[in-house]
Protein backbone atom coordinates (compact mmCIF):
# COMPACT_ATOMS: atom_id res chain seq x y z
CA UNK A 1 0.00 0.00 0.00
CA UNK A 2 2.69 2.47 0.92
CA UNK A 3 4.60 1.51 -2.22
CA UNK A 4 1.50 2.26 -4.23
CA UNK A 5 1.18 5.61 -2.52
CA UNK A 6 4.82 6.39 -3.18
CA UNK A 7 4.35 5.47 -6.79
CA UNK A 8 1.36 7.74 -7.06
CA UNK A 9 3.21 10.52 -5.32
CA UNK A 10 6.14 10.24 -7.69
CA UNK A 11 3.87 10.13 -10.71
CA UNK A 12 1.94 13.15 -9.48
CA UNK A 13 5.15 15.08 -8.87
CA UNK A 14 6.33 14.37 -12.40
CA UNK A 15 2.94 15.11 -13.89
CA UNK A 16 2.96 18.47 -12.14
CA UNK A 17 6.12 19.19 -14.06
CA UNK A 18 4.35 18.43 -17.32
CA UNK A 19 5.42 14.81 -17.72
CA UNK A 20 2.66 13.29 -19.84
CA UNK A 21 3.87 9.73 -19.38
CA UNK A 22 3.69 10.14 -15.62
CA UNK A 23 0.10 11.26 -15.94
CA UNK A 24 -0.58 8.31 -18.16
CA UNK A 25 0.67 6.08 -15.35
CA UNK A 26 -2.01 7.54 -13.13
CA UNK A 27 -4.65 6.99 -15.80
CA UNK A 28 -3.56 3.38 -16.20
CA UNK A 29 -3.61 2.80 -12.49
CA UNK A 30 -6.87 4.48 -11.53
CA UNK A 31 -9.13 4.61 -14.56
CA UNK A 32 -10.89 1.33 -13.80
CA UNK A 33 -11.73 2.39 -10.27
CA UNK A 34 -13.05 5.71 -11.56
CA UNK A 35 -15.02 3.78 -14.17
CA UNK A 36 -16.67 1.68 -11.48
CA UNK A 37 -17.84 4.70 -9.54
CA UNK A 38 -18.90 6.42 -12.76
CA UNK A 39 -20.86 3.37 -13.84
CA UNK A 40 -22.66 3.21 -10.52
CA UNK A 41 -23.44 6.87 -10.79
CA UNK A 42 -24.60 6.92 -14.41
CA UNK A 43 -25.71 3.33 -14.93
CA UNK A 44 -24.39 3.10 -18.47
CA UNK A 45 -20.99 2.14 -19.83
CA UNK A 46 -20.77 4.86 -22.44
CA UNK A 47 -21.71 7.54 -19.93
CA UNK A 48 -19.23 6.11 -17.45
CA UNK A 49 -16.46 6.37 -20.04
CA UNK A 50 -17.33 10.01 -20.68
CA UNK A 51 -17.14 10.68 -16.95
CA UNK A 52 -13.78 8.91 -16.67
CA UNK A 53 -12.40 11.04 -19.46
CA UNK A 54 -13.72 14.24 -17.94
CA UNK A 55 -12.44 13.27 -14.50
CA UNK A 56 -8.87 12.85 -15.68
CA UNK A 57 -8.96 16.01 -17.76
CA UNK A 58 -10.14 17.97 -14.73
CA UNK A 59 -7.57 16.23 -12.55
CA UNK A 60 -4.85 17.22 -14.98
CA UNK A 61 -5.94 20.82 -14.93
CA UNK A 62 -6.06 20.90 -11.14
CA UNK A 63 -3.05 18.76 -10.38
CA UNK A 64 -0.98 21.81 -9.46
CA UNK A 65 -3.25 22.27 -6.47
CA UNK A 66 -3.03 18.67 -5.30
CA UNK A 67 -1.36 18.43 -1.91
CA UNK A 68 1.37 15.82 -2.11
CA UNK A 69 0.55 14.58 1.41
CA UNK A 70 -3.01 13.73 0.40
CA UNK A 71 -4.14 10.47 -1.11
CA UNK A 72 -4.30 10.82 -4.87
CA UNK A 73 -7.00 8.19 -5.31
CA UNK A 74 -9.30 9.88 -2.79
CA UNK A 75 -8.73 13.24 -4.45
CA UNK A 76 -9.38 11.76 -7.87
CA UNK A 77 -12.59 10.04 -6.78
CA UNK A 78 -13.92 13.31 -5.44
CA UNK A 79 -13.38 14.83 -8.85
CA UNK A 80 -15.00 11.77 -10.39
CA UNK A 81 -18.12 12.07 -8.26
CA UNK A 82 -18.46 15.72 -9.10
CA UNK A 83 -17.98 15.06 -12.79
CA UNK A 84 -20.66 12.37 -12.63
CA UNK A 85 -23.04 14.73 -10.85
CA UNK A 86 -22.43 17.40 -13.48
CA UNK A 87 -22.96 14.86 -16.21
CA UNK A 88 -26.22 13.67 -14.73
CA UNK A 89 -27.48 17.18 -14.16
CA UNK A 90 -26.74 17.95 -17.78
CA UNK A 91 -29.37 15.43 -18.81
CA UNK A 92 -32.23 16.03 -16.42
CA UNK A 93 -34.88 14.67 -18.77
CA UNK A 94 -33.53 11.18 -18.64
CA UNK A 95 -32.93 11.41 -14.93
CA UNK A 96 -36.41 12.49 -13.96
CA UNK A 97 -38.25 10.30 -16.40
CA UNK A 98 -36.60 7.18 -15.22
CA UNK A 99 -36.84 7.94 -11.56
CA UNK A 100 -40.52 7.44 -10.89
CA UNK A 101 -41.09 4.71 -13.41
CA UNK A 102 -38.16 2.73 -12.14
CA UNK A 103 -39.02 3.02 -8.49
CA UNK A 104 -42.65 2.19 -9.11
CA UNK A 105 -41.76 -0.76 -11.23
CA UNK A 106 -39.19 -2.01 -8.80
CA UNK A 107 -41.44 -1.68 -5.79
CA UNK A 108 -44.15 -3.80 -7.35
CA UNK A 109 -42.46 -5.62 -10.18
CA UNK A 110 -40.54 -8.10 -8.12
CA UNK A 111 -43.48 -9.55 -6.26
CA UNK A 112 -43.85 -13.18 -7.01
CA UNK A 113 -40.36 -13.51 -8.40
CA UNK A 114 -39.28 -17.10 -8.11
CA UNK A 115 -36.16 -18.20 -6.32
CA UNK A 116 -34.83 -19.35 -9.65
CA UNK A 117 -34.96 -15.79 -10.87
CA UNK A 118 -32.79 -14.68 -8.05
CA UNK A 119 -29.97 -17.05 -8.71
CA UNK A 120 -29.04 -14.90 -11.62
CA UNK A 121 -26.60 -12.38 -10.37
CA UNK A 122 -27.40 -10.31 -13.39
CA UNK A 123 -30.86 -9.69 -12.06
CA UNK A 124 -29.51 -8.36 -8.81
CA UNK A 125 -27.12 -6.17 -10.74
CA UNK A 126 -29.91 -4.80 -12.86
CA UNK A 127 -32.18 -4.15 -9.94
CA UNK A 128 -29.54 -2.49 -7.84
CA UNK A 129 -28.49 -0.32 -10.75
CA UNK A 130 -32.11 0.53 -11.50
CA UNK A 131 -32.66 1.36 -7.84
CA UNK A 132 -29.60 3.59 -7.89
CA UNK A 133 -30.95 5.36 -10.94
CA UNK A 134 -34.01 6.22 -8.88
CA UNK A 135 -31.90 8.38 -6.59
CA UNK A 136 -31.07 12.00 -7.20
CA UNK A 137 -27.50 12.76 -8.23
CA UNK A 138 -26.68 14.07 -4.76
CA UNK A 139 -28.28 11.12 -2.97
CA UNK A 140 -26.49 8.69 -5.24
CA UNK A 141 -23.11 10.31 -4.80
CA UNK A 142 -23.42 10.54 -1.02
CA UNK A 143 -24.66 6.97 -0.74
CA UNK A 144 -22.00 5.51 -3.03
CA UNK A 145 -19.22 7.41 -1.28
CA UNK A 146 -20.42 6.14 2.07
CA UNK A 147 -21.30 2.61 1.04
CA UNK A 148 -18.64 1.59 -1.46
CA UNK A 149 -15.81 3.89 -0.58
CA UNK A 150 -16.30 4.07 3.16
CA UNK A 151 -16.07 7.86 3.19
CA UNK A 152 -17.01 9.54 6.44
CA UNK A 153 -19.79 12.11 6.58
CA UNK A 154 -17.12 14.81 6.87
CA UNK A 155 -15.38 13.58 3.72
CA UNK A 156 -18.68 13.47 1.85
CA UNK A 157 -19.46 17.00 2.98
CA UNK A 158 -16.10 18.20 1.74
CA UNK A 159 -16.31 16.40 -1.60
CA UNK A 160 -19.87 17.39 -2.40
CA UNK A 161 -19.85 20.76 -0.68
CA UNK A 162 -22.71 19.83 1.64
CA UNK A 163 -23.56 20.61 5.23
CA UNK A 164 -23.46 17.69 7.64
CA UNK A 165 -27.24 17.36 7.88
CA UNK A 166 -27.66 17.54 4.12
CA UNK A 167 -25.10 14.75 3.63
CA UNK A 168 -26.76 12.59 6.27
CA UNK A 169 -30.22 13.12 4.90
CA UNK A 170 -29.02 12.33 1.39
CA UNK A 171 -27.79 8.99 2.69
CA UNK A 172 -30.98 8.38 4.68
CA UNK A 173 -33.17 9.06 1.68
CA UNK A 174 -30.96 6.93 -0.54
CA UNK A 175 -31.06 3.94 1.79
CA UNK A 176 -34.82 4.22 2.24
CA UNK A 177 -35.37 4.30 -1.50
CA UNK A 178 -33.06 1.34 -1.94
CA UNK A 179 -35.03 -0.58 0.69
CA UNK A 180 -38.29 0.04 -1.11
CA UNK A 181 -36.82 -0.84 -4.47
CA UNK A 182 -35.05 -4.00 -3.35
CA UNK A 183 -37.68 -5.30 -0.91
CA UNK A 184 -39.22 -7.67 -3.46
CA UNK A 185 -35.90 -9.44 -3.85
CA UNK A 186 -35.47 -9.82 -0.12
CA UNK A 187 -38.94 -11.12 0.60
CA UNK A 188 -38.06 -14.32 -1.19
CA UNK A 189 -35.01 -14.89 0.89
CA UNK A 190 -36.52 -14.05 4.29
Amino acid at each position, binding site marked *: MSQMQLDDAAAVAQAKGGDEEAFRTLVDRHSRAVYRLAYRMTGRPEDAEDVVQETFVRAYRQIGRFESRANFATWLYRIGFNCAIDYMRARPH*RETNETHETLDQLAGGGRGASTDDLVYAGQINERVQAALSGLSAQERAAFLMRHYDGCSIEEICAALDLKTNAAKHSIFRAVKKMRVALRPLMSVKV
Partner: protein
Amino acid sequence: MNHPTDDDLILHFYQERGARNREHAAAESARIDAHLTTCASCGESWRELQETLQLVDAAKVPEPAPAFERLMWARIAPAIRRADDERPVDDVTPVAPARPRPAGWMDWRRLVPMAGLSAAVLALVFGLRPGPRPSVPKPGSPVPVSAAETAAAATLKDSGDGQSRRVLLTALDGHFAQTEVLLVELLNRPDSDLTLDFERGSAGDLLADGRLYRLTAVQTGEQRYVDVLDDLESLLVEVARSPEKVKRQEMKVLRSRISEDGLLFKVRAVNHEIRERQQEMFTVTANEGSL
Protein backbone atom coordinates in the same frame (compact mmCIF):
# COMPACT_ATOMS: atom_id res chain seq x y z
CA MET B 1 -34.75 2.72 25.64
CA ASN B 2 -36.76 4.37 22.92
CA HIS B 3 -36.91 2.52 19.65
CA PRO B 4 -34.16 3.65 17.31
CA THR B 5 -35.46 5.35 14.19
CA ASP B 6 -34.66 4.14 10.69
CA ASP B 7 -32.12 6.94 10.48
CA ASP B 8 -30.50 5.78 13.73
CA LEU B 9 -30.21 2.28 12.29
CA ILE B 10 -28.60 3.56 9.12
CA LEU B 11 -26.04 5.51 11.13
CA HIS B 12 -25.54 2.45 13.28
CA PHE B 13 -24.93 0.29 10.22
CA TYR B 14 -22.31 2.66 8.93
CA GLN B 15 -20.92 3.23 12.39
CA GLU B 16 -21.53 6.93 11.99
CA ARG B 17 -22.19 8.22 15.45
CA GLY B 18 -24.13 11.39 16.01
CA ALA B 19 -22.94 11.62 19.60
CA ARG B 20 -20.64 14.39 20.73
CA ASN B 21 -17.74 12.27 21.87
CA ARG B 22 -16.36 8.84 21.24
CA GLU B 23 -17.25 7.44 24.64
CA HIS B 24 -20.83 8.55 24.40
CA ALA B 25 -21.01 7.26 20.84
CA ALA B 26 -19.78 3.83 21.84
CA ALA B 27 -22.34 3.71 24.66
CA GLU B 28 -25.12 4.70 22.30
CA SER B 29 -24.05 2.03 19.83
CA ALA B 30 -24.01 -0.58 22.56
CA ARG B 31 -27.50 0.46 23.63
CA ILE B 32 -28.81 0.03 20.10
CA ASP B 33 -27.18 -3.39 19.84
CA ALA B 34 -28.80 -4.44 23.11
CA HIS B 35 -32.17 -3.12 22.03
CA LEU B 36 -32.03 -4.99 18.74
CA THR B 37 -31.68 -8.30 20.56
CA THR B 38 -34.81 -7.70 22.63
CA CYS B 39 -37.15 -5.80 20.32
CA ALA B 40 -38.64 -7.96 17.58
CA SER B 41 -39.84 -5.14 15.34
CA CYS B 42 -36.58 -3.20 15.49
CA GLY B 43 -34.65 -6.45 14.99
CA GLU B 44 -36.71 -7.10 11.86
CA SER B 45 -36.02 -3.61 10.54
CA TRP B 46 -32.34 -4.08 11.26
CA ARG B 47 -32.19 -7.37 9.37
CA GLU B 48 -34.01 -5.89 6.41
CA LEU B 49 -31.58 -2.98 6.33
CA GLN B 50 -28.62 -5.34 6.46
CA GLU B 51 -30.04 -7.48 3.68
CA THR B 52 -30.73 -4.46 1.50
CA LEU B 53 -27.20 -3.25 1.82
CA GLN B 54 -25.80 -6.73 1.29
CA LEU B 55 -27.72 -6.87 -1.99
CA VAL B 56 -26.14 -3.56 -2.93
CA ASP B 57 -22.76 -5.11 -2.18
CA ALA B 58 -23.60 -8.11 -4.34
CA ALA B 59 -24.15 -5.99 -7.42
CA LYS B 60 -21.14 -6.02 -9.68
CA VAL B 61 -20.04 -3.45 -12.16
CA PRO B 62 -19.37 -4.95 -15.58
CA GLU B 63 -15.65 -4.89 -16.28
CA PRO B 64 -14.65 -2.71 -19.18
CA ALA B 65 -12.68 -4.08 -22.11
CA PRO B 66 -9.13 -5.34 -21.49
CA ALA B 67 -7.72 -2.44 -23.48
CA PHE B 68 -9.78 0.03 -21.45
CA GLU B 69 -6.80 1.98 -20.13
CA ARG B 70 -5.29 2.36 -23.57
CA LEU B 71 -8.59 3.46 -25.07
CA MET B 72 -9.16 5.96 -22.30
CA TRP B 73 -5.71 7.37 -22.74
CA ALA B 74 -6.39 7.84 -26.44
CA ARG B 75 -9.32 10.04 -25.46
CA ILE B 76 -7.66 11.85 -22.57
CA ALA B 77 -4.30 12.67 -24.14
CA PRO B 78 -5.55 15.14 -26.80
CA ALA B 79 -7.66 16.94 -24.20
CA ILE B 80 -4.80 17.42 -21.76
CA ARG B 81 -2.53 18.62 -24.52
CA ARG B 82 -5.07 21.31 -25.23
CA ALA B 83 -5.30 22.02 -21.54
CA ASP B 84 -1.56 22.54 -21.53
CA ASP B 85 -1.97 25.25 -24.13
CA GLU B 86 -4.73 26.92 -22.19
CA ARG B 87 -3.94 26.36 -18.56
CA PRO B 88 -4.45 28.53 -15.95
CA VAL B 89 -3.99 25.81 -13.42
CA ASP B 90 -6.98 26.84 -11.35
CA ASP B 91 -9.34 26.29 -14.20
CA VAL B 92 -11.61 23.42 -13.21
CA THR B 93 -13.98 23.44 -16.11
CA PRO B 94 -14.32 20.65 -18.62
CA VAL B 95 -12.43 20.52 -21.86
CA ALA B 96 -13.49 17.06 -22.89
CA PRO B 97 -13.47 16.39 -26.58
CA ALA B 98 -16.11 14.51 -28.42
CA ARG B 99 -16.24 10.77 -28.10
CA PRO B 100 -14.39 9.44 -31.12
CA ARG B 101 -16.74 9.10 -34.03
CA PRO B 102 -16.34 7.47 -37.38
CA ALA B 103 -14.32 9.77 -39.56
CA GLY B 104 -16.02 11.41 -42.44
CA TRP B 105 -19.73 11.33 -41.75
CA MET B 106 -19.48 14.05 -39.15
CA ASP B 107 -17.48 16.38 -41.33
CA TRP B 108 -19.11 19.67 -40.59
CA ARG B 109 -18.87 20.86 -44.14
CA ARG B 110 -21.39 18.17 -44.90
CA LEU B 111 -23.52 19.07 -41.92
CA VAL B 112 -24.06 22.67 -42.94
CA PRO B 113 -26.63 21.88 -45.64
CA MET B 114 -28.18 19.23 -43.37
CA ALA B 115 -28.75 21.80 -40.66
CA GLY B 116 -30.15 24.28 -43.11
CA LEU B 117 -32.56 21.65 -44.36
CA SER B 118 -33.66 20.91 -40.79
CA ALA B 119 -34.34 24.58 -40.24
CA ALA B 120 -36.38 24.71 -43.41
CA VAL B 121 -38.42 21.67 -42.36
CA LEU B 122 -38.96 23.16 -38.95
CA ALA B 123 -40.07 26.44 -40.44
CA LEU B 124 -42.51 24.56 -42.65
CA VAL B 125 -43.99 22.57 -39.78
CA PHE B 126 -44.29 25.51 -37.43
CA GLY B 127 -44.94 28.22 -39.93
CA LEU B 128 -41.90 30.06 -38.67
CA ARG B 129 -39.49 32.18 -40.58
CA PRO B 130 -35.91 32.45 -39.56
CA GLY B 131 -35.79 35.99 -40.84
CA PRO B 132 -32.60 37.95 -41.11
CA ARG B 133 -29.56 37.09 -39.09
CA PRO B 134 -30.49 37.83 -35.51
CA SER B 135 -29.20 40.91 -33.85
CA VAL B 136 -27.48 39.41 -30.91
CA PRO B 137 -26.69 40.55 -27.44
CA LYS B 138 -23.22 41.16 -26.16
CA PRO B 139 -21.33 38.00 -25.36
CA GLY B 140 -22.19 36.71 -21.93
CA SER B 141 -25.51 38.44 -21.54
CA PRO B 142 -28.63 36.28 -21.34
CA VAL B 143 -30.95 36.15 -24.30
CA PRO B 144 -34.39 37.27 -23.24
CA VAL B 145 -37.53 35.74 -24.63
CA SER B 146 -38.77 38.45 -26.93
CA ALA B 147 -42.37 39.54 -27.25
CA ALA B 148 -42.42 38.09 -30.75
CA GLU B 149 -41.23 34.76 -29.44
CA THR B 150 -43.78 34.77 -26.67
CA ALA B 151 -46.53 35.64 -29.08
CA ALA B 152 -45.43 32.97 -31.48
CA ALA B 153 -45.25 30.48 -28.65
CA ALA B 154 -48.75 31.38 -27.58
CA THR B 155 -50.20 30.90 -31.02
CA LEU B 156 -48.35 27.78 -31.95
CA LYS B 157 -49.80 24.96 -29.97
CA ASP B 158 -48.35 21.53 -29.81
CA SER B 159 -50.66 19.21 -31.59
CA GLY B 160 -50.55 16.92 -28.58
CA ASP B 161 -49.32 13.89 -30.50
CA GLY B 162 -45.69 14.83 -29.99
CA GLN B 163 -45.21 15.60 -33.66
CA SER B 164 -43.79 19.06 -33.06
CA ARG B 165 -41.49 17.74 -30.36
CA ARG B 166 -40.29 15.04 -32.71
CA VAL B 167 -39.53 17.55 -35.44
CA LEU B 168 -37.70 19.75 -32.97
CA LEU B 169 -35.59 16.87 -31.70
CA THR B 170 -34.65 15.88 -35.23
CA ALA B 171 -33.63 19.42 -36.02
CA LEU B 172 -31.72 19.88 -32.78
CA ASP B 173 -29.90 16.59 -33.28
CA GLY B 174 -28.30 17.91 -36.46
CA HIS B 175 -27.83 21.37 -35.03
CA PHE B 176 -25.98 20.24 -31.93
CA ALA B 177 -23.94 17.72 -33.93
CA GLN B 178 -22.78 20.51 -36.19
CA THR B 179 -22.10 22.75 -33.23
CA GLU B 180 -20.08 20.01 -31.59
CA VAL B 181 -17.93 19.62 -34.67
CA LEU B 182 -17.39 23.39 -34.83
CA LEU B 183 -16.30 23.47 -31.20
CA VAL B 184 -13.92 20.55 -31.66
CA GLU B 185 -12.56 22.18 -34.77
CA LEU B 186 -11.86 25.40 -32.86
CA LEU B 187 -10.24 23.54 -30.00
CA ASN B 188 -8.05 21.46 -32.24
CA ARG B 189 -7.04 24.08 -34.75
CA PRO B 190 -3.23 24.36 -34.75
CA ASP B 191 -1.78 27.77 -34.07
CA SER B 192 -0.12 27.68 -37.46
CA ASP B 193 -3.54 27.93 -39.10
CA LEU B 194 -5.69 30.69 -37.64
CA THR B 195 -7.91 31.34 -40.64
CA LEU B 196 -11.54 31.07 -39.62
CA ASP B 197 -13.20 31.74 -42.93
CA PHE B 198 -15.39 28.66 -43.00
CA GLU B 199 -15.96 28.67 -39.25
CA ARG B 200 -17.32 32.19 -39.41
CA GLY B 201 -19.87 31.22 -42.03
CA SER B 202 -20.86 28.12 -40.15
CA ALA B 203 -21.21 30.03 -36.89
CA GLY B 204 -23.47 32.51 -38.66
CA ASP B 205 -25.65 29.71 -39.98
CA LEU B 206 -25.78 28.06 -36.59
CA LEU B 207 -26.73 31.37 -35.05
CA ALA B 208 -29.67 31.88 -37.39
CA ASP B 209 -30.86 28.30 -37.10
CA GLY B 210 -30.30 28.28 -33.37
CA ARG B 211 -32.59 31.26 -32.96
CA LEU B 212 -35.32 29.43 -34.83
CA TYR B 213 -34.84 26.27 -32.80
CA ARG B 214 -34.83 28.30 -29.63
CA LEU B 215 -38.19 29.75 -30.51
CA THR B 216 -39.56 26.28 -31.12
CA ALA B 217 -38.02 24.99 -27.93
CA VAL B 218 -39.68 27.81 -25.99
CA GLN B 219 -42.98 26.86 -27.56
CA THR B 220 -42.67 23.20 -26.74
CA GLY B 221 -41.49 23.85 -23.21
CA GLU B 222 -38.03 22.41 -23.76
CA GLN B 223 -36.31 24.87 -21.45
CA ARG B 224 -33.21 22.72 -21.20
CA TYR B 225 -32.47 23.20 -24.89
CA VAL B 226 -33.31 26.89 -24.69
CA ASP B 227 -30.64 27.23 -22.00
CA VAL B 228 -27.98 25.42 -24.02
CA LEU B 229 -28.81 27.42 -27.14
CA ASP B 230 -28.49 30.58 -25.07
CA ASP B 231 -25.14 29.43 -23.72
CA LEU B 232 -23.89 28.82 -27.24
CA GLU B 233 -25.18 32.00 -28.75
CA SER B 234 -22.60 34.45 -27.45
CA LEU B 235 -19.73 32.23 -28.58
CA LEU B 236 -21.26 31.84 -32.03
CA VAL B 237 -21.57 35.60 -32.22
CA GLU B 238 -17.91 35.99 -31.44
CA VAL B 239 -16.88 33.45 -34.06
CA ALA B 240 -19.24 34.87 -36.67
CA ARG B 241 -17.92 38.38 -36.06
CA SER B 242 -14.29 37.45 -35.84
CA PRO B 243 -11.91 38.59 -38.58
CA GLU B 244 -11.08 36.15 -41.32
CA LYS B 245 -7.75 35.49 -39.71
CA VAL B 246 -7.58 35.74 -35.95
CA LYS B 247 -4.60 36.39 -33.78
CA ARG B 248 -3.21 33.70 -31.60
CA GLN B 249 -4.44 35.48 -28.48
CA GLU B 250 -7.94 35.79 -29.93
CA MET B 251 -8.04 32.10 -30.65
CA LYS B 252 -6.89 31.42 -27.13
CA VAL B 253 -9.76 33.52 -25.79
CA LEU B 254 -12.26 31.61 -27.93
CA ARG B 255 -10.92 28.31 -26.67
CA SER B 256 -11.01 29.51 -23.10
CA ARG B 257 -14.64 30.47 -23.50
CA ILE B 258 -15.49 27.03 -24.81
CA SER B 259 -13.67 25.46 -21.89
CA GLU B 260 -14.80 27.80 -19.15
CA ASP B 261 -18.45 27.54 -20.08
CA GLY B 262 -18.20 23.77 -20.52
CA LEU B 263 -19.85 24.22 -23.91
CA LEU B 264 -18.61 21.04 -25.50
CA PHE B 265 -19.67 19.04 -22.49
CA LYS B 266 -23.14 20.58 -22.50
CA VAL B 267 -23.61 20.09 -26.22
CA ARG B 268 -22.60 16.47 -26.04
CA ALA B 269 -24.83 15.82 -23.05
CA VAL B 270 -27.94 17.32 -24.62
CA ASN B 271 -27.30 15.62 -27.92
CA HIS B 272 -26.92 12.33 -26.13
CA GLU B 273 -30.23 12.92 -24.45
CA ILE B 274 -31.90 13.95 -27.70
CA ARG B 275 -30.82 10.76 -29.38
CA GLU B 276 -32.18 8.71 -26.53
CA ARG B 277 -35.48 10.49 -26.73
CA GLN B 278 -35.62 9.97 -30.44
CA GLN B 279 -34.93 6.30 -29.93
CA GLU B 280 -37.69 6.07 -27.32
CA MET B 281 -40.12 7.80 -29.67
CA PHE B 282 -39.13 5.50 -32.46
CA THR B 283 -39.69 2.46 -30.26
CA VAL B 284 -43.09 3.69 -29.11
CA THR B 285 -44.13 4.43 -32.67
CA ALA B 286 -42.93 1.04 -33.83
CA ASN B 287 -44.83 -0.68 -31.01
CA GLU B 288 -47.98 1.26 -31.75
CA GLY B 289 -47.65 0.38 -35.39
CA SER B 290 -47.41 -3.29 -34.64
CA LEU B 291 -50.62 -3.30 -32.56
